[in-house]
């Protein structure tokens, strides 16, 4: 016993010594890292790494070809890596101080990385800064700094199965423009085989009703929690009414993973989804005829949610100047339209709008929403609050809207302290 405890002391001493040695290394390599605090970008001849969270081969190929084209014209090497788990690979890179130079970044990850100093706030140095939609710029502004260029964006609108629409005796004059009309048409479209409207039971869809009522979980800058306002309560009450009336069902309750699946499988006559649904409809449900119309207006007018990602640049990148040039190229009208053609996102800049609308006449409502769409909360930790809200929204049919929103309000306020 005596002997073995001595051994433990020895092992412990070795471990402590080794840890101290490692810690010495650690402070060693943090000293030499380039910083952007003085506003100057780092510059070197090192090739760039571009880390993307790809939706599929089409997206990977499109990004690859645009980056390769830039690399050829600029003379700076660049390699695209399609991440299998973007969050994890990003985090590993930052922890090792060898991050990808340019990467996809979601709105809910922005605050966390901005806070720990991993990101370069390059937004104000973009030459095409004024071309981005202002609401998208707001989504990527943290502590008053515009961090990264919006890559593209999506909005939610109402998708209608035209065959079912006609079968129910409805015409183009009946497209709902108010909540009352939405209730009426979804009741008419509900029969034994399918439900009128089916959406995913989460904030990312139901939030559209909040914006139509004049609310949202937080203000546009995500600096103030506004979850339990009367507007939001009325929005949830409306959704609850639809749910209890039987003309709205959550996608999971009709046996689908998301609204698009419920819609494509003919389990619902209408759904609320973003422009990404076109990809699923073409590949999985090519025989379903559908039409995209604007969501009905609520008590406070038109409203919908928008979702976006940006091109993040790492603060630890040794070649930020080249990375910025690459991002300017990737967010240019020509590149964004090429991406749009390849995998369907909407360009994040105003100057590409008219050409996109001409190319996608059926999807115009999505882009028209750019003027009134609102972003999702971006405060640090808001993703966890939204997850918690989603859990409660799953049982909205039997829950109390005010109680649900009060809890969310409390959680959001805790983030801002």
């Amino acid at each position, binding site marked *: 016993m005596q002997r073995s405890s001595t051994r433990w002391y020895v*092992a412990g001493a*070795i*471990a*402590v010594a*080794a*840890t101290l040695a*490692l*810690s*010495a*290394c*650690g*402070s060693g*390599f*943090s000293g030499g*890292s380039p910083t952007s605090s003085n506003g100057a970008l780092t510059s070197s001849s090192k090739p760039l790494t571009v880390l993307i969270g790809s939706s599929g081969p089409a997206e990977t190929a499109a990004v690859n070809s645009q980056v390769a084209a830039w690399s050829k014209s600029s003379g700076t090497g660049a390699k695209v890596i399609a991440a299998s788990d973007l*969050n*994890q690979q990003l*985090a590993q890179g*930052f*922890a090792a*101080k060898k991050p990808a130079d340019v990467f996809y970044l979601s709105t809910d*990850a922005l605050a*966390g*990385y901005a*806070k*720990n*100093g*991993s990101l370069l706030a390059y937004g104000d140095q973009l030459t095409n800064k004024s071309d981005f939609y202002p609401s998208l710029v707001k989504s990527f502004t943290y502590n008053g700094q515009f961090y990264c260029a919006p890559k593209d964006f999506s909005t939610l609108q109402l998708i209608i199965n035209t065959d079912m629409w006609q079968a129910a005796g409805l015409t183009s004059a009946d497209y709902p423009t108010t909540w009352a009309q939405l209730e009426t048409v979804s009741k008419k479209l509900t029969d034994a085989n399918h439900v009128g409207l089916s959406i995913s039971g989460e904030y990312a869809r139901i939030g559209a009703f909040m914006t139509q009522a004049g609310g949202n979980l937080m203000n546009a800058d995500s600096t103030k929690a506004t979850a339990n306002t009367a507007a939001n309560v009325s929005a949830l009450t409306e959704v609850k009414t639809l749910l209890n009336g039987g003309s709205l069902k959550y996608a*999971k*309750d*009709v*046996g689908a993973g998301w609204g698009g699946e419920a819609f494509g499988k003919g389990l619902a006559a209408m759904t609320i989804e973003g422009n990404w649904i076109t990809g699923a409809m073409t590949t999985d449900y090519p025989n379903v005829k559908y039409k995209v119309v604007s969501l009905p207006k609520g008590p406070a007018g038109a409203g919908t949610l928008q979702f976006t990602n940006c091109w993040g640049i790492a603060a*630890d990148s040794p070649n930020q100047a080249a990375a910025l040039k690459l991002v300017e190229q990737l967010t240019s009208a020509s590149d964004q339209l090429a991406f749009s053609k390849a995998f369907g996102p909407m360009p994040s800049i105003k100057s590409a709008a008219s050409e996109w609308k001409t190319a996608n006449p059926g999807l115009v409502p999505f882009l028209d929403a750019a003027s009134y769409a609102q972003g999702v909360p971006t405060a*640090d*930790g808001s*993703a*966890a*609050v939204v*997850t*918690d809200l*989603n*859990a*409660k929204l*799953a*049982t909205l049919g039997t829950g109390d809207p005010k109680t649900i929103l009060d809890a969310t309000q409390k*959680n959001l306020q*805790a983030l801002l302290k």
Partner: protein
Amino acid sequence: MSTLTSRSRRSGFRRGEAASGWLFTAPTIVIIGLFVVIPVFMALWVSFSDWGGRGSPFASTVNFVGAKNYSTLLAGGGLDEQNFGTALRNNAWYVVLVVPIQTAVSLILAILVNRAILRGRGFFRTAFYFPSVTSSVAITVLWLFLFGTTGAVNKVLSWVGIHGPNWFNDPNGVLHNILSVVGVKTGPAVLTGNTFLGVSWWDWLAGPSVAMSAFILMAIFTTSGTFMLLFVAALQNLGGDVTEAAMMDGANGWQRFWRVTLPQLRPTMFTVLTLGLIGCWQVFDQIYTGTQGAPGNTTLTPAYLSYTAAFSNQNWGQGAAIAFILFVIIVVFTIFQRWVLRDRAVSKRRMRLYRVPPADPRIAAASAAAASDSTEKTSGGAS
């Protein structure tokens, strides 16, 4: 040769042996130290620091924050505490149901396939073991299909007139469901009003959600095979003599199983329970590939919460703190279980069973000797 022998007789030999011992174990010590011990200490430091995930956790910019990460989880009063409480609740029900059931099932399977008269024993052993060698990701995906709303399981249930639940999308607790059948829809105020770790006692008693039940079934299905193998190995190591002696004493099959075979399996039982306990508290892959905590956070587990806290929310200190709390939970449970399964002296009540009324002094003496003999054997086999 002769010099070697003569040297070995002197004290130097032992010292040489120790040195070569260290030499041979050095690679393993270095590897374990570098990839296990040091990372564990680093994680321990991270759990007491405000490291944000950028650069080394030992950089000068990283500060010691005391037990802040732990207190946020255990007494913060916010969403973090509530999520941690929910994760512990979910995982506790998972452990409570999976560990005993999988141990019982694997023991039964082992006894079945260990019977000499069973035809095609090899086939059954392979069949039962097969789920264990399949990757948990593949099984999870299979499970998602089987337990889909319109999946095979609900189809089968519909044949017997049962409208199956919406498995992986149903956040309702099983115990709550049972209680609502008998008319209890909301709990008494004393349970709903008081909370522990941000979760009300009524919700602690909700039982596993329907979604979690599907994972519980999956865990039993996949791991029973592995533990069956351990039990089969242990059963084959048992000598036939003790069982034969029990037969001669007139013990029936049931008594032989409970009084003779099972006590001898105690070391294996300890292994199986411990491994099961550790595996169950660390459940991660199924959640990561399957539901990611949905529906309604009812499949959230501490291991998965630790991952999301660190990798998605950049709360690295909190993620590490969750991991260490989990470590403490596992150690406490293992010690408790070791205490429950410890070797005990045969109780007086049990002892009385072996005693024969002393009619003839000679017979009484002989049977007492036999009794003490068999007690020794039993405890000897178990230690």
